[in-house]
């Protein structure tokens, strides 16, 4: 495998991993496969775009890129705000839809179906608001710098890989070293027992949506920076996200990240060897292999 494929794979993998971490948390704690998670990714990307334009319009000069990156000061501020807004959106959808179904005691599969409906509605709403024409954060062209090993990478790409790892380590520390994280893992393992020892399940559910929404927004903005912003970007990412979650083992944050990297690398490899038009099928191939060989994934517990 050449270094360039490795870099492309790492980039795609970091993006998939970020989205998959949020998805694996909702999966293990709320106990359903959320088909609307991809929409949080797209909404995050568009919220970053709108907020950065708004901030730029208000403050004037802050839209200029920060050398050597194509990212402007306005965009950095916008991403932070957009993370909060995406988290709010996730909380809103939960309140309007999923929380009601949970209260009624709906089976997991009814909730999955509701998430499918929500995904369709959220995606089409983006299409309505922004049209299906692709959008960009910046029209700046970046020159790829040569790196050792014959690899070429733009400064943006290196920045994003670094950021993704910081984000994942932060979430990992949150889950393993804080009371909130311990409570989350307790609810994921046994909600009844967690309730008995006095853990506030509603609070944990909120925390899950906030973390998931914020990470999805990060993934969406990354993808928008590297490629483009489209209403379907999150939906197209959904299958790789599920592949990463299943490969890593449902509920495992390091697993989701590693799964994301593996799926990303497989995609990059397939693009080089088979052809870019088959990229979208790679995730399904990964899912098939995992389900046949090791359905619990790399770090999953048998259920």
């Amino acid at each position: 495998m050449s270094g360039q494929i490795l870099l492309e794979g790492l980039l795609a993998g970091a993006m998939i991993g970020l989205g998959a971490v949020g998805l694996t948390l909702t999966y293990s704690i709320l106990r359903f496969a959320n088909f609307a998670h991809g929409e949080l990714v797209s909404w995050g990307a568009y919220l970053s775009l709108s907020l950065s334009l708004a901030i730029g319009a208000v403050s004037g000069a802050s839209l200029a890129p920060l050398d050597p990156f194509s990212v402007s000061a306005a965009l950095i501020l916008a991403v932070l705000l957009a993370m909060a807004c995406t988290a709010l959106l996730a909380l809103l959808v939960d309140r309007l839809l999923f929380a009601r179904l949970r209260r009624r005691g709906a089976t997991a599969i009814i909730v999955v179906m509701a998430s499918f409906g929500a995904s369709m509605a959220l995606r089409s709403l983006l299409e309505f608001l922004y049209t299906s024409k692709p959008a960009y954060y910046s029209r700046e062209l970046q020159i790829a710098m040569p790196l050792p090993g014959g690899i070429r990478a733009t400064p943006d790409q290196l920045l994003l890989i670094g950021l993704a790892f910081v984000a994942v380590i932060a979430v990992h520390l949150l889950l393993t070293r804080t009371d909130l994280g311990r409570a989350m893992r307790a609810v994921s393992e046994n909600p009844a027992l967690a309730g008995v020892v006095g853990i506030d399940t509603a609070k944990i559910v909120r925390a899950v949506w906030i973390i998931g929404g914020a990470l999805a927004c990060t993934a969406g903005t990354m993808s928008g920076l590297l490629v483009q912003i489209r209403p379907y970007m999150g939906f197209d990412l959904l299958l790789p996200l599920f592949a990463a979650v299943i490969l890593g083992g449902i509920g495992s944050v390091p697993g989701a990240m590693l799964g994301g990297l593996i799926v990303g690398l497989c995609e990059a490899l397939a693009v080089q060897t088979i052809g870019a038009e088959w990229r979208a099928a790679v995730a399904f191939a990964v899912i098939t292999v995992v389900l046949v060989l090791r359905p619990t994934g790399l770090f999953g517990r048998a259920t």
Partner: protein
Amino acid sequence: MSLELLAYCAFFLTVALTYAVIVLGLNVQWGQTGLFNVGVAGFVAVGAYASALLTSPPVEGRLGGFELPIVIGWLGAFVASGVLSALIGWMTIRLRADYLAISTFGIAVTIQLAVLNLEGVTGGPFGISLIPRPFGELAGQSLAFSLANLALLVAVVFGLYLMLQHLARSPWGRVLRAIREDEVAAEALGKSPRRFRIEAFALGGAIMGLGGAAQAHFIGFIAPENYLPMLTFQVWAMLIVGGSGNNRGAILGALLVWALWAASSAVVEALAPAGEQARAASLQTVIIGVALCAILLFRPQGLLPEPGSARRRLPFLHRWRGTPAATTGSERT
């Protein structure tokens, strides 16, 4: 004028009935058995392409084009989709319930990609045209042609309905419902839940393939963009609106949702300015998505509830709170 209207009504009903076939297939999977298929479009596509390849005239540089009779094509569609469903079912049905949802979603994405890219088999983005239409010799007289096709589809849907009603009341159908309601009890009585589920999934998939073939032959042309996730979504909306578990509900849902869909498309076309058509159409999808969620929230049984089972709607069997997944029946699969 009234003749034209009649021809249009026949056309509309025929398309709606091709959807009814697909919804009946989904009802076998979801309504009777509780298997969640998010890849309906993929199974429909397999049926449509299988039948088109078997029956269409040969084309330079493309596989297929055997010009076989339409009946053989429909049979091929039934078998192709059924075999594919059995494979998917075999792979995932022993696992958690939602793995099936993810796998079917994946297979639909992959099938869409395959029909788009395998130009030598499927015609790629250009699709397959000149698919023979039933009663094609009547094509000159549009009214007779429409009515003959309508009669054919009515016969197909009615036949399917009778068969599925019979199956639901048969020992096989009873075992399926028993497994859906209480898997452990059914297993204790010596029934293999996995085998019955795979059979039901394969049968449902085969019927969807048949529906895809019927649609392809009625329109006479297929292309990859007919089989986007939107189709899956429409079919689900039809089943949920009509009432899952009820075959009459499935047919009613198909007619009703298709009518609403066609009417709202007409409104969009009439009201939205020329440049904003695509935008207005996406608003239409938003409304349908919200409506689907609202039905799940407020009337999960649909218009026609499942016959003879008020029990099914009792607080959905497993409460999320207080029941660890590992100890409930249905989540162990």
